[in-house]
């Protein structure tokens, strides 16, 4: 190989390396962006919903507490890629400083604020069906989001129950925790 052709060969080799490196960078960048997009999409619940005519079984005060279930609506949809029965419940806290929620030796001077956890039981033709609450499965220790309501406050809470059943006839809102402090 003469000097000129050797120079040309080395140049070509260098050019190939540049192409390979550029290719790797493009692939890595594309994979990273794609991964971020997929993760982002997976975390966003789908808003495609289909209204349900299921009946709410238990409006009023929940389980002997002073938490008043004002209303609830339900729909079929998807959360985290799973088919769901999605409940939107409006809750009012009627606890007060004079009649506070359970304090259990907490050092808080209660103003009536209640820390609560809600889930739901679903029925199809009067038979209870199995459905996991996937609203926020990593929420220790309740397994559902912990919501704080000041005395007199009304708020709307979403409950996502994983099920592919599209014949839910009725549902019950269950109060699974109520305390007068941030539940540890």
């Amino acid at each position: 190989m003469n000097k000129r052709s050797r120079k040309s060969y080395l140049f070509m080799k260098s050019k190939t390396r540049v192409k390979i490196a550029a290719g790797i960078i493009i692939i890595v960048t594309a994979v990273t962006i794609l991964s971020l997009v997929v993760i982002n999409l997976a975390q966003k619940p789908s808003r495609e919903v289909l209204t349900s005519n299921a009946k709410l079984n238990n409006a009023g005060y929940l389980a002997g507490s002073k938490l008043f279930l004002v209303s609830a609506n339900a729909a079929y949809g998807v959360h985290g890629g799973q088919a769901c029965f999605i409940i939107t419940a409006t809750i009012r806290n009627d606890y007060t400083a004079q009649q506070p929620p359970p304090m259990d030796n907490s050092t808080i001077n209660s103003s009536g604020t209640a820390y609560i956890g809600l889930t739901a039981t679903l029925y199809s033709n009067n038979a209870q069906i199995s459905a996991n609450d996937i609203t926020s499965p990593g929420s220790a220790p309740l397994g559902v989001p912990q919501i704080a309501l000041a005395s007199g406050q009304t708020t709307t809470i979403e409950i996502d129950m994983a099920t592919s059943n599209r014949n839910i006839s009725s549902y019950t809102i269950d109060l699974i925790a109520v305390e007068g402090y941030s539940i540890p």
Partner: protein
Amino acid sequence: MRRKVTNCFAAIIIAVLAVVFMSNIAVHAQINSSPSTGQWQPPANFVNPVAIKVAEYKAMNMSDDQITAALTAQGMGWDPITGAAWMGVLIAPTETNAPQVVDPFAENITAPVSSQTSSVSPQTNVEADVLMGSSYNYMGFGVDMSCGSVATSSTGTNTHYVTTHIGKAYSDGTPCWTEVGVCNYDGGLWFYTYEGNTPVPGESGWQYVCAINSETYQNAYCIQLNGVQDQYGWQYNIYINEQWERSGHLQAQLNSVNFADEIFSTTGSYTIDSINAHWVNSELYSNGVWNDWNSGASFQNSGNNPMPLSYDDYIYSNCYVYDAWTSQTT
């Protein structure tokens, strides 16, 4: 020239990776290398000191009230009905030797506003957990844990728990658990134990043990069910640094275990930790045997996006190590 461009690209990628890696290390580097208390396990057939005293007093024909008074004088407490027992006093809200807490909503609410939507936003909480997947096979755990800064502030995180849970929900979904860890209320760091929705309502609630010794020292935490079921449920004992602190009941004999970093805020802003919480030497108790915890764990969080908590987990000395810290304000 092109080779230089290639090298330049490579250098940039390496630099970016190094920055990411070092930012992770920077937090870990703040952990003290204080010696672990080791993989301590409670003695077999342990009987807590309160139960021993109660047996002595009953042999002396003392009434329950007399026993309660005698125990209180010795810094002990018990429930005469269920037999639940604890060291110290379950602190009432009027006591002054507990961390003082201000209800975050107290200043915002002047009077109950029935049927009105308040301007106060619901408090949010965010957790980072290592969970044992779907397995409910455990009668106890042991772990050495340094709590870290457990950061709070007036404008960010208002309540912060670095803790450990064991329990299993009732069939209707109501959670039932007990726990031991460190809490921060308004800047005071305390060892605490807590029971939530246990079979005996009167047993549930708080025990503030004492102020913590160090943010970076690895204290040993252990909860163990002793295999005894009475009419109130399955008995358990809680230990901190090999000292018994509390007994009570859980509804299930076989339970799930998790370690959790829990932060609460009413402002939507969180306080960044200067030192991360660090769990090490994790062990699980099952079928009468203690085993290193090194498989089956999964990480879960509350799913908020963005997530203000960061975490890391890996195997060291044949056991899971778990780190968690608040890394973002929102």
